[in-house]
C-alpha cells in the first residue's frame, strides 16, 4: 500500500476529529475569502470611479504640476507631441485639460470651485462624466409633492430619508427607495413627474455653458439655466472673470470633487484664465490598463517627452486615495491574520492530541520495522490532507457567492444607503473575482500546516520505542 493511501485511511479512523479540524480551516478560509473579495472589490470600484470621472489612467503634466498644481505650471501642448503620444500602440487619445481654482457665485452665494476645461466630444471617449448626469433628484418641492401622492409606505418613508439626494439612473433610484417590482409601474411615473431633472451635457460647440457638480448646485442653490459668475486668478496673476449658464448637473463620486466641480469647454477655460493655447495637463487614454502595461506605456511615453514634462499614472495622481485604501486594507488583513492565528492554535491542538493518542501505535510500527522517515511522511500527509480538505471546501463554498456578488453587487437600501452616500460612497459593495488573494489563503494555511507538521515529525524522530510501547 502506498503511503498516501495509508495516510488517507488514517484520516477516517477518527472521522469526527478530522472533520472538525477541516471544518475549522474551512471556516477561516471561507470568511477570509468573502471579506477580502468585498474589500478588494470596493477598492477596485473606487479607483475606477476616480479614474473614469476625473484623472484618467495617465496624464501628461509639467514636472512640477503634481506638487504645485497652479496655472503657472501649465504648458503649451504642441501638436507634434500629441502625434508622438498618439502613435503609441497602447494609446487611444489625448485630451488636453486646463484646470484651476476660482470662486463661483450664483445669486448671493459663493463657493470655491475647480474650473475644468476640456473638449467635451474628445473627453467622452475616455471619461464617462456624461453618465453621471442627474436624472432624478428629491428637492424639497419634489419631496413635498410626492408625500401628497399615494406611495407604498416603505417608499414614502424612504423619500423622507433621502430628501436632497439625486440619482443618475432609474435602477439605483428603485433600489434606494425600496420600490418593489409590483409597485414600480404605478410609482415610477410619479417620480418622473415630480422628481426628474431635465438637463443635458456639454458639446464642443457650446460657449459660455457649464456642467456643475450636484453638491455645488445644492450649495449655490443654482438650477439648470441659472448663470454662474466665476472669478479668480488667471495665468501669471491676471484677474479672471466670466459668466456661464448651467447646462447640466452631474453627480461626481468623490464629495470633494462633487462640491467644487465646474466643467466648461477648453476654449472657454483658456479664455477665462487668459491662457491662450495652454493646458495644465493632458489625459492620455489607453486600451490596456493592466498595472504592468500601464507602467510600460508610461515609461515609453516619458522617453519621448520634452524636458520639463512628465507622464503621471493614476496612482501618482491619487496618492491620497491610495493611502487611505491601503490603511483600510491593512486593517482588514490584520483581522484575517488574527482569525488564522486562532485557527492555527486549533490545528496545533488537534496534532498534539493525535500524537499523544497514537504513541503506542507509532511505537509498534517502528518496532516491527517501519522507517521513522516513512512514518513521519505518512503523518505529514495526513495533516496536509486535512488542511487541503478545509482550503478546498472553503474555496468551493466561496466561489458561487463571489461570482454572484460580482455579477449582482450587493446594494444597500434605505438608511444604510443614505449613510454611505453621505460619506460620498455609492452604497454598492461589488466583489472582486478570484485573484491572487485566493492563492494567499492557501499559502497561509500551508504555513500553519508546516509548523504543525514539523512539530509532529520531530516528535516521531524523538520517539522512544520502549516507552511508546508501554504507553
Amino acid at each position, binding site marked *: 500500500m502506498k503511503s498516501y493511501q495509508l495516510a488517507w485511511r488514517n484520516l477516517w479512523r477518527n472521522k*469526527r*476529529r478530522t472533520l*472538525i*479540524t477541516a*471544518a*475549522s480551516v474551512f*471556516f*477561516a478560509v471561507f*470568511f477570509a475569502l468573502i471579506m477580502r473579495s468585498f474589500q478588494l472589490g470596493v477598492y477596485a470600484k473606487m479607483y475606477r470611479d476616480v479614474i473614469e470621472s476625473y484623472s484618467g489612467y495617465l496624464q501628461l503634466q509639467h514636472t512640477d504640476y503634481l*506638487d*504645485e498644481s*497652479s496655472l503657472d505650471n501649465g504648458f503649451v501642448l504642441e501638436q507634434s507631441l500629441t502625434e508622438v503620444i498618439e502613435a503609441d500602440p497602447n494609446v487611444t487619445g489625448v485630451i488636453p485639460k486646463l484646470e484651476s*481654482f476660482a*470662486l463661483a*457665485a450664483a445669486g*448671493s*452665494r*459663493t*463657493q*470655491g*470651485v475647480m474650473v475644468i476645461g476640456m473638449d467635451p466630444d474628445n473627453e467622452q471617449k475616455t471619461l464617462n462624466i456624461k453618465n453621471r448626469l442627474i436624472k432624478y433628484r428629491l428637492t424639497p418641492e419634489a419631496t413635498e409633492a410626492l408625500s401628497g401622492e399615494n406611495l407604498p409606505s416603505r417608499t414614502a418613508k424612504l423619500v423622507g430619508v433621502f430628501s436632497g439626494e439625486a440619482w443618475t439612473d432609474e435602477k439605483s433610484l428603485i433600489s434606494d427607495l425600496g420600490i418593489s417590482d409590483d409597485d414600480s409601474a404605478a410609482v415610477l411615473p410619479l417620480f418622473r413627474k415630480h422628481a426628474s431633472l431635465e438637463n443635458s451635457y456639454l458639446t464642443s460647440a457650446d460657449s459660455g455653458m457649464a456642467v456643475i457638480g450636484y453638491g455645488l448646485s*445644492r*450649495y*449655490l*442653490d443654482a438650477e439648470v439655466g441659472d448663470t454662474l459668475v466665476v*472669478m*479668480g*486668478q488667471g495665468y501669471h*496673476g491676471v484677474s479672471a472673470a466670466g459668466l456661464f449658464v448651467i447646462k447640466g448637473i452631474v453627480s461626481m463620486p468623490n464629495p470633494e470633487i462633487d462640491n*467644487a466641480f465646474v466643467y466648461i469647454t477648453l476654449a472657454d477655460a483658456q479664455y477665462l484664465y487668459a491662457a491662450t493655447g495652454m493646458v495644465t495637463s493632458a489625459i492620455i487614454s489607453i486600451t490596456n490598463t493592466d498595472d504592468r502595461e500601464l507602467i510600460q506605456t508610461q515609461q515609453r511615453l516619458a522617453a519621448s517627452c520634452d524636458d520639463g514634462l512628465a507622464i503621471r499614472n493614476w496612482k501618482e495622481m491619487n*496618492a*491620497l*486615495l*491610495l*493611502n*487611505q*485604501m*491601503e*490603511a483600510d486594507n*491593512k*486593517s482588514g488583513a*490584520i*483581522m484575517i491574520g*488574527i*482569525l488564522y*492565528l*486562532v*485557527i492555527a*492554535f*486549533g490545528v*496545533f*491542538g*488537534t496534532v*498534539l*492530541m493525535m500524537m*499523544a*493518542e497514537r504513541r503506542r501505535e507509532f511505537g509498534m510500527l517502528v518496532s516491527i520495522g517501519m522507517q521513522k522517515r516513512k512514518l513521519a511522511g505518512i503523518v505529514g500527509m495526513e495533516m496536509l490532507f486535512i488542511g487541503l480538505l478545509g482550503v478546498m471546501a472553503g474555496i468551493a463554498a466561496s466561489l458561487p457567492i463571489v461570482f454572484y456578488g460580482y455579477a449582482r453587487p450587493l446594494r444597500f437600501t434605505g438608511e444604510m444607503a443614505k*449613510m454611505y452616500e*453621505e*460619506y460620498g460612497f455609492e452604497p454598492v459593495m461589488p466583489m472582486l473575482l478570484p485573484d491572487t488573494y485566493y492563492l494567499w489563503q492557501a499559502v497561509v494555511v500551508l504555513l500553519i500546516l508546516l509548523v504543525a507538521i514539523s512539530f509532529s515529525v520531530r516528535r516521531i524522530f524523538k520517539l522512544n520505542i520502549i516507552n511508546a510501547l508501554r504507553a
Partner: protein
Amino acid sequence: MITSIAWKNVWRNRTRSLTVIAAVTVGVFAGVFAMAAINSSIVQRIDAAVNEELSHIQVNNPGFRGSSDIANVIAGPQKVVKVLDETPGVTHIAERIIVRGIASTSAGSAGVEITGIDVEKEQQMFTLNERLIPGTGSYFGTDTRLNSAFIGEKLAKELYIIRYILSEESFTTLEAEGVPAAVAAKLRPLENQRFTTEKKLTEAFSGLLTAKEAKLYGMKIKEAAWSYREGSKIILTFLDADGMQTGAAFRICGIFRTNNDFFEAMSLFVPRDELRRLTGMEEGQYHRIIARLEDNDQTDKASAAVKESLPGLEVMNWKQIQTDLAMIADYVNRIYGIFMVLILAALAFGIVNTMLMAVLERTRELGMLSAIGMNRRRVFSMIMLESIFLSIVGGFAGMAVSAIVIAITNHTGINLVKYAEGLEAFGYSAQLYPTIGADFFIMLTVMIVITGIISAIYPARKALQLNPVEALRGE
C-alpha cells in the same frame, strides 16, 4: 462538588488544555486590542471635533449652513445668548461672523471659510491655540491684533507660505537632534536653497544620502528645514454685505497643526471686528453662536432644551453636524462585534475538538461513574463546566494581557505614520492611544461563557449517549 471535579479534570491533560487556553488567550487578546485601537481613533476624532473644530452646540440662521449667504444672520442674537446662558451645563458662549472667500498669495490660492472670532472668548473655549506650531508666531499676539489671521498648516502649504530651507540654524537643530556630523556634512550643498514642497526637499536630500540615512533622518531633516517667514501676508477676497467683491491683506500671526486636513485647509480665523469692518456688517449681527458644555454627556439634553427655546433658528449639536462621526462609530463597533463573534466561533472549533477527545478517551471512566450512580444531569453539567473553565481561563488571561498592553500603549501611543496622510485627510489621527470601556469586558465575558457552553453541547451529548455497560467493557 461537580465544580471541583470538573476543574481537576481540566488539568489532567495539562498540555492539551493549555493549548486550548492559549488559543483562547491569543484570540481574545487580539480581538480586544484591535477593538481598543480602533475605538481610540474614534474617541480622539470626537475630542478633536469638540475641542478644536465645532464646540458642543451651534445656533445658526436656518438658511446659513446650506448657503453661507452673508445676509443670513441670526435674528435676535441677544435672546440666543440669554437662552444659552440659562441652559444648565453651558460654560462658554461665543458669537461668530463667517464668510466664504479666497485666500491668495503670489504663488497660490485656495477657497476658505473666513471666521471672525472673539479672540479671548474662543481661547477659553477651544484648545486650538495650543495647536500653534512653535516658531510660527502666536495665537493673535497682542500688537498685531488688527489685520491678523490664524491659519492651518495645510492651507499655508497650499498658499506656499511654508517652505523648506536648510539654514545655519537648521544644521544646529540637526546636531542637537543627534543627526551624525557625517550626514549633516553631506547635506551642506543644500544649504540655504529654498524648496517649495516637502517632496522636492526629500528628492534633493535623498540624492545626497544613502537610502538608510534618508530613512533614518528624513523626518528630522524635514522638521529642521521647515521654515516660514513670520508675518507673511495673504490676500483675502470675499463678497461684502452688499454683494460687492471686496478684500484686504492680512498678516499671518500663527499657523496651527491638527490631525484634520480638511479643517486645516478650510479654516482661517481673523478677529471679528476686523471682518465686520471689511464686510460692512452691522454691530450685533452674527452668523453663528456657539456654546461649550461642561460635560460632553450633556450634549443631547442641552441641545434639545436650547432648540425648544429658540424656534425659528437652527440649533445643532456636534453629533448632528458631524453625522458621519456618530454613524461611523456605530458602524465600526458593529463590524468589530461581528469580528469578535468570528474569533470566538473559530475558537469554538478548538474547544469542541478538545472536549470531544476528553470525553471519548474517558469512555470507561464515564461508564464507571454512571454505573455507580452519577446521574445523567451531573455528567452533562460536569462536561459543560470543563468546557466553560477552558474558555473562561483563556478568556480572563486574554483580557488581562490586553488590559496590560492597552495600558502600556495608551501611554506610549501607536504610530501609524505611514498612513498619516490618508487618515488625516479624514480627520483621524495617525497616533493612536488605545482605550476601551469597562462595559466591553463584561459583555465579552458573557460572550466567552456562551462560547464555552455552545462548544460543550456536542461532546456532552456524546457523553450521555454512552451506555454504561458497553462503556465499562470498552478499551
